[in-house]
């Protein structure tokens, strides 16, 4: 099925998530959709699969305008989506998941017939899933396979895969790619949303790159030619495909490091043989020693394990193996409280979910953070404290403003204001996300001031400029692999892009 998206616009509040996006996927091709986090590719595929309604624009399928308002509509048009976290029903069995929501099923279930179809489809793609197994007992890869088989049984003509290769084994990946090629061969169109350059290179016929809500380039990998949309990229045969993609994704040049040297000799945070596990990832960090005053930037596409790593360093996540030491204290498997006492602070990305408490005011947050063994809150002192914080951190709000009423930038300033002092290690996710340039500069001013006082900062960011500008050293996470720290001055746009794409 040929899929055309024409002039799609979508706003989320002030954010223009899709700005006049057009995309054509020919029938029988595998089309890669690339971009940083927040580039708008998720929004785009969610519009196509009916999860989000677009503000304007048109979806055309095989030349005919399609009216997609809900996933049910999309399914009827034969568009199926495979979500990054498989949207299935863990307590049910594989075969029940296969049947659930199936258009082909009659009112009375016929598990035998379903199982026959299921087995036939599985055999077709060499998938090996026990129909009676509970989904909760399957691996992420198997759950994906199950979803693919299910969507195929529903007769989808277009298959959207969102980050399908994260968290699955190499052999499962091979199986997946084979299956996808086979499907493309049957004339189905496949949209492959990914970060991983090598996967895209290996699999896709065509790549569209998005940045800041817009399409910034398209690349026909079969023709190995570059069709330009912006026209500022020179046709240079020396550029590898990957390099071109990296350039499109991240821009051509990286900013220059601006951070003054602040690090001291003393090692404050050290990690040995750390193994971290989640449902989707398993990663290992052999050795890391962070010095006082040092800033470590953690680059990589979101969901590559950065958060897991930061939370483990903060004591919020139990490592499967390895040690975490703070100065000369072994904090491995110690409760979070001990980390706090040792001067570790974690500033999460999702401010209103993990960092701030909706329904409480700035002043109450300040009081919550400063609370000690005293019983009564000294209102006047708390107000004064909050006012000082508001003044110092330039927060647009009053002490009695509820945090959810603050803008994103002011919420971030509030989070910064809540950092305890003195502080040994600061673990941050996206310190300046959603902030304007001025605020960004200001935030880093504050952070560098902290460094000068001896605080070590480990921060994750999807903004490569920020990583290079403010880090002393940079670690790159990619699909569970972690690079050793590299001095920021040694990085180039290309090398960084390649590493983020999984080449190191």
């Amino acid at each position, binding site marked *: 099925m040929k899929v055309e998206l024409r002039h799609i616009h979508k706003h989320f509040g002030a954010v223009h998530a899709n700005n006049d996006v057009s995309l054509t996927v020919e029938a029988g091709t595998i089309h890669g959709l690339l971009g940083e986090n927040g580039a708008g590719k998720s929004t785009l595929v969610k519009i196509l699969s009916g999860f989000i309604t677009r503000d304007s624009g048109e979806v055309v399928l095989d030349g005919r305008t399609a009216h997609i308002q809900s996933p049910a509509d999309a399914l009827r048009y034969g568009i199926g989506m495979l979500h990054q976290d498989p949207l299935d029903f863990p307590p049910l069995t594989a075969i029940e998941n296969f049947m659930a929501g199936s258009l082909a099923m009659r009112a009375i279930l016929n598990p035998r017939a379903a199982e026959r179809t299921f087995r036939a489809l599985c055999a077709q793609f060499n998938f090996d899933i026990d129909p009676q197994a509970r989904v909760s007992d399957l691996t992420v890869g198997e759950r994906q396979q199950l979803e693919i088989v299910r969507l195929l049984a529903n007769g989808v003509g277009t298959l959207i895969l969102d980050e399908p290769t994260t968290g699955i084994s190499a052999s499962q990946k091979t199986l997946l790619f084979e299956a996808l090629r086979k499907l493309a061969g049957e004339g189905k169109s496949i949209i492959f949303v990914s970060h991983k350059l090598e996967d895209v290179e290996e699999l896709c016929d065509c790549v569209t790159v998005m940045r800041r809500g817009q399409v910034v380039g398209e690349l026909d990998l079969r023709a190995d030619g570059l069709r330009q949309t912006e026209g500022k990229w020179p046709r240079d045969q020396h550029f590898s495909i990957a390099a071109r993609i990296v350039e499109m994704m991240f821009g051509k040049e990286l900013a220059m490091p601006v951070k003054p040297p602040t690090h001291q000799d003393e090692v404050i945070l050290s990690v040995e043989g750390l193994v971290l596990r989640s449902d989707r990832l398993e990663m290992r960090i052999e050795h890391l020693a962070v010095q006082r005053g040092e800033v470590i930037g953690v680059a990589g596409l979101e969901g590559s394990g950065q958060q897991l790593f930061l939370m483990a360093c903060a004591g919020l996540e139990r490592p499967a193996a390895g040690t975490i030491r703070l100065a000369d204290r072994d904090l491995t498997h110690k409760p979070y409280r001990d980390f706090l006492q040792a001067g570790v602070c974690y500033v*999460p990305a999702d401010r209103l*979910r*993990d960092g701030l*408490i*909706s329904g409480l005011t700035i002043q*109450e947050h300040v009081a*919550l*953070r400063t609370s000690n063994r005293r019983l009564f*809150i000294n209102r006047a002192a708390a107000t004064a404290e909050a006012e000082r914080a508001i003044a110092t951190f330039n927060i647009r709000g009053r002490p009695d403003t509820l945090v959810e009423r603050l803008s994103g930038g002011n919420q971030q300033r509030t989070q910064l204001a809540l950092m305890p002092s003195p502080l040994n290690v600061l673990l941050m996710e996206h310190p300046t996300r959603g902030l304007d340039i001025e605020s960004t500069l200001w935030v880093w001013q504050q952070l560098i001031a902290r460094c000068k006082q001896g605080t070590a900062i480990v921060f994750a960011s999807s903004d490569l400029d920020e990583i290079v500008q403010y880090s002393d050293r940079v670690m790159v996470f990619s699909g569970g692999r972690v690079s050793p720290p590299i001095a920021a001055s040694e990085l180039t746009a290309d090398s960084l892009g390649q590493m983020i794409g999984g080449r190191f």
Partner: protein
Amino acid sequence: MLYRVGAFVISLVLIGLVVVLSGASPITVIGRMLSGAFGTADQIGRVVATLSPLLLCAAGLVYTFNAGLYNLGVEGQITFGAIAATLVLRLLHPEGASASLAPPPLTIALAIVAGGIGGVLWGLLAGALHVYGRISEIFAGLGLNFAATGIAIYLIFGPWKRPGVASLSGTQPFDESLWLGTFGQTEATPVALILGLIALAITIVVMRNTYFGLRLRAVGKNLRASYVLGVPARRQLLSAFFICGLFAGVAGALQVVGVFHRLIPNISSNLGFLGLLVVMLVNFDPRWILPVAFFFSALNIGSLQLPLSLGLESSLSGVIQGLLVLFALIGRGLAQRYGRKLEH
């Protein structure tokens, strides 16, 4: 605002409708209930006697509600507090003995303390099931309510039964020396009222002015973020159960020493559930508990007049309370759903 007032008005209309449906005039009913609640010193005394334990329960529930918990187990906490208080009274004043082993005031004080401890035990049991067993506090609480009543009935029927009588009407009344003193001839006891008011006052202060209250609210609003910010969430949740159990247990003890002067199966008298309604109606803000609890107590006492000469059922008071709270919730929901849209 519009929606909330609208919902409030609808609830009033519905209450009127229910009254009319039963063939009575709303005005007469209101008049009768008011005079039934405040007509005589006795009646006012009774309103106060109902108010005191209600204040304790509602104050206790403020902690659990603010910690994000629906402590439906409060009834069981009252009951177990009452059982514990009865146990102490029986130990210190064995049946048939002419005098207590301790001076009566001390005995009463000890019984109230024991009631608090009993309530705490029952509250912490629900809390432990919730925090460590990951069982919904709602079902744990409901189950423990029935378990506590079961224990009370067993004791009343078994080891603590009146000589020769196995009846649900309760244990042998305690010696009059062990009754809490009252305001004159009425049933209101100053001690209970003072305890209720103190509990409420403490609660208002704790919620507004202490770090503990702040942390509790933080945990209730966002468990995860408050944990990240360094609030010991488990301890906070258990403390909420502890305090609520404590207050409810004291209320149970007061029911024994101040109202019934013995243990009866329904010693909690649904005061815990009534407290839940009060706290839901005030949207967990303790400052409004006193007037609402007073109003609810007056309704309950005044409703005793309905069967007299009007021939109506006293449960109208429950209907009024229920409708008010239901529509307060719906009004809140409407305001959240449509009120914001208007703002934009």
